[in-house]
């Protein structure tokens, strides 16, 4: 039985692999032992399974179906953003309409100031992303490049607080901002806390381990560089790939954030996009305009999609590096 499977696989193997795998008998034995240990029975009693070709067909079908399931909503969203309320309610369409400008005009004239909201969101997201990344780099550099007392403890401490959800401290945070600092309706309490970002710190400190040799910093010191300028002129350029990815993640996280901004920003001029989108949900059946709603939602997801189209590869790479402990 196993011979048959092997002979099925061999042509495949030859077609697919450029270099013939260097199979040592030791490895084969190790794998065999592992199979036997885990199953308690010989691997040779295997029933014949699906061929690689069948699996490949299934894989492409499932991948295509899931991709459609991920994208169809955005497609419908952008199509409906170009149609009027009455067109949308009459039926589904997969071709764009001609009402995009009309919908945008409604957006401009609405009491919900979406353009102002976009600006507010952009200000908060940009500032907090830059603070987040720069100071996380500084924190990571402190741990990576210096040997001071309590260094390990600080590292472990930052990792420990990484998992604490922000909501757990939100009552105290709300009271601090609103009652103590009198900063209700201010952007500052939504920007400044980004300086302490354990997740970004973790990613950058990992990146430094493999990409920032101490010899380089030593050389800079011998050249008489000041510690702060070593950080800004030597470390920062070297960290660019990691910083760029984290900048995008921090921007997106802030851009999408609803929980804290909704508690702190109350006046209509200060609202961010997620808060405005949420108010659409409250529209009554009578004064609901779907064309307006779709164009507003499209506006709030479009910037992220555009950024993603350009940097998808780096972002996806960043997920796999940052998410898994080395």
């Amino acid at each position: 039985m196993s011979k048959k499977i092997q002979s099925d696989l061999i042509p495949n193997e030859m077609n697919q692999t450029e270099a013939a795998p260097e199979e040592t008998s030791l490895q084969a034995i190790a794998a065999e032992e592992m199979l036997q240990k885990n199953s308690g029975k010989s691997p040779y009693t295997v029933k014949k399974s699906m061929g690689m070709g069948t699996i490949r067909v299934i894989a492409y079908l499932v991948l295509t179906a899931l991709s459609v399931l991920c994208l169809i909503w955005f497609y419908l969203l952008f199509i409906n953003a170009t149609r009027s309320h009455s067109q949308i309610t009459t039926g589904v369409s997969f071709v764009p309409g001609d009402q995009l400008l009309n919908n945008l005009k409604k957006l401009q004239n609405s009491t919900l100031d979406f353009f102002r909201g976009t600006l507010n969101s952009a200000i908060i997201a940009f500032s907090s992303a830059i603070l987040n990344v720069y100071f996380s780099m500084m924190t990571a550099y402190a741990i990576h490049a210096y040997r001071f007392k309590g260094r390990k403890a600080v590292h472990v401490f930052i990792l420990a607080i990484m998992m604490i959800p922000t909501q757990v401290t939100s009552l105290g945070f709300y009271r601090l901002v609103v009652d103590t600092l009198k900063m209700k309706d201010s952007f500052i309490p939504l920007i400044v806390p980004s300086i302490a970002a354990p997740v970004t710190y973790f990613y950058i400190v990992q990146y430094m381990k493999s990409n920032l040799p101490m010899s380089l910093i030593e050389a800079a010191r011998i050249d008489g560089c000041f510690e702060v300028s070593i950080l800004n002129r030597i470390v920062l350029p070297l960290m660019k790939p990691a910083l760029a990815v984290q900048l995008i993640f921090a921007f997106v996280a802030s851009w999408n954030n609803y929980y804290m901004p909704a508690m702190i920003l109350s006046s209509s001029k200060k609202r961010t996009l997620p808060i405005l989108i949420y108010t659409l949900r409250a529209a009554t059946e009578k004064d609901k305009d779907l064309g307006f709603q779709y164009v507003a939602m499209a506006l709030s997801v479009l910037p992220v999609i555009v950024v993603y189209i350009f940097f998808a590869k780096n972002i996806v790479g960043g997920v796999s590096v940052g998410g898994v402990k080395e």
Partner: protein
Amino acid sequence: MNETVKKHSKLGKDKWGYIFLIPFFVVFLVFSFYPLIQTIYFSFFDHYFSQTDFDYVNKFVGLKNYKALFSAGTARLFFNTMILWVMGFIPQILFSLLLASWFANNRLRIRAAGFFKAVIYLPNLIMAIAFGMMFFTMFSRGGPVHQIFESFGMSKDYDLFFHIAPTRSLIAFINFIMWFGNTTILLMAGIMGINESLFEAAEVDGASQFQVFRKITLPILKPILVYVLITSLIGGIQMYDVPEVVTKGSGMPMNKDIFSTNVPAAETVIMRLAQYISKSKNYGSAGALSVMLLFITGILSFVVYKFMAKDED
């Protein structure tokens, strides 16, 4: 490395380590630690509007707020949150395992793998409030998906959001769409780390694809699976944006079941917390609930930490 650093760095350089840590710790102390202490402090008080003082007052009540947490209502909130999470997580982990094992399979050689990965990760970056609102608009009466359902015989007047199972399923579905790409990428990184020769040896021995997956991939992947499970669970406990926008903050529809509590079927723990803080100003209950959440996430994080540490031995 450690030795050379010590030898080369002049005395006093290392004080810069402390200086560079200042911004992080100042911000952490002001915006996280102090709020945490405040939160714990408020959990021992009742915060209410006094008619005689015409203002809010705090009255020390000891453990009363904590005792109140052990009620059917709180259990219901946690039950709601967990059921929404489980309904999304099961398809999420199954599809992610499947996709990750395909992407990482050298013999399968998926073409355009980069494209597929980019597409399935996209929903994770989308504003959850907008994504939830999008689904609400499309599944509510008059929406495109509702219209498609109508062509299969659903009544034009049927409102999914008046019924428990459809509302919960939709919220879980949104979470699934938003997170399976992320999980796939994490698991893939884990599978890529497995020594290729193990797969080759198993194949030479005639193991089927399924056997390779079950006997080699899964056991080696266990630490990452645990990591994914628990981080997802911690994320699940924080579920807020999607059910908040889908149910307009109400958590409706109402439950009519054995719990006989007046907690709606899609109201999550954090939805209640937000309501306590910014709407009802019930700081005492908010504080106690926060401390409970801190406790739960703390234990879960500790499990991850222990598990990962054990794995490294």
